[in-house]
């Protein structure tokens, strides 16, 4: 626990700029996606029982207003983790590109925002 607190404190106070923030977001989004996956699998198991359980799961966990707001976080988490993962793979296999890593992080964030904004608008359209 002390190691965890110290690590989070160092993660925030260490002035590692783009690469450090990209790493923190990758870990946070990865752990968030795993928590969502746990919920997703259990809820699909319940929904697969029959039409009644399906309707309850669909209404409460997937289409209620709080679920729609959390869905935007999920969209950001998955898109960020996917694009940042591609950046990691590219730099792992072409280490010479490490010279431009700050630029690559910024290009990646632009790509995430370009995909996220229309997806978030479609997601939140129903509740406003």
């Amino acid at each position, binding site marked *: 626990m002390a190691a965890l607190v110290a690590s989070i404190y160092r993660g925030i106070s260490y002035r590692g700029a783009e690469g450090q923030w990209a790493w923190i977001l990758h870990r946070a989004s*990865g752990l968030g996606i795993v928590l969502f996956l746990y919920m997703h699998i259990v809820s699909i*198991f319940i929904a697969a029982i029959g039409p009644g359980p399906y309707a309850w799961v669909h209404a409460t966990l997937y289409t209620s207003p709080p679920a729609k707001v959390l869905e935007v976080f999920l969209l950001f988490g998955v898109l960020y983790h996917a694009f940042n993962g591609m950046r*990691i793979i590219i730099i792992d296999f072409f280490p010479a590109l490490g010279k431009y890593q700050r630029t690559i992080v910024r290009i990646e964030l632009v790509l995430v925002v370009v995909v996220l904004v229309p997806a978030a608008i479609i997601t939140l359209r129903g509740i406003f």
Partner: protein
Amino acid sequence: MATSSSRPYQGKTRYGAPNHEGRIWLFMRLTGLVMFITVVFHLLYMHMAVGVENITFDNIDARWSGPAGVFWRLFDASLLFIGMAHGMNGVRFSINDYVHNKILNFLLTAAVYGLGLFLILLGSLAIVLGAGGLGNLFQRLTG
């Protein structure tokens, strides 16, 4: 590479056969590449093309039926297996980074893997039995 040479990395180092963690490093990249296609497709298709409101029990039943249903069940199984394998490994990395007590580290890792395997079993049951399959099985078992 235990040298104190100050020469910069030339990109020509020859590495031996990868060890266990080296293979896991490659596994995370390969599964990541596959999921960049499959998970991003699943996410954008379900949220933007179909819309979460329109995913009904009958739609799932139809999508999982017939010859094309075999493809979609295999696709959904690939999301379940690859996603959970990649995710469980990511949680293991995090535990190793923060939990240095060997006993606690082992217990947490075992709990994460145990829960992961149990959830893979639940997901597989849903995919194999299909929409409503669990309810039908339960009714048959209880007469």
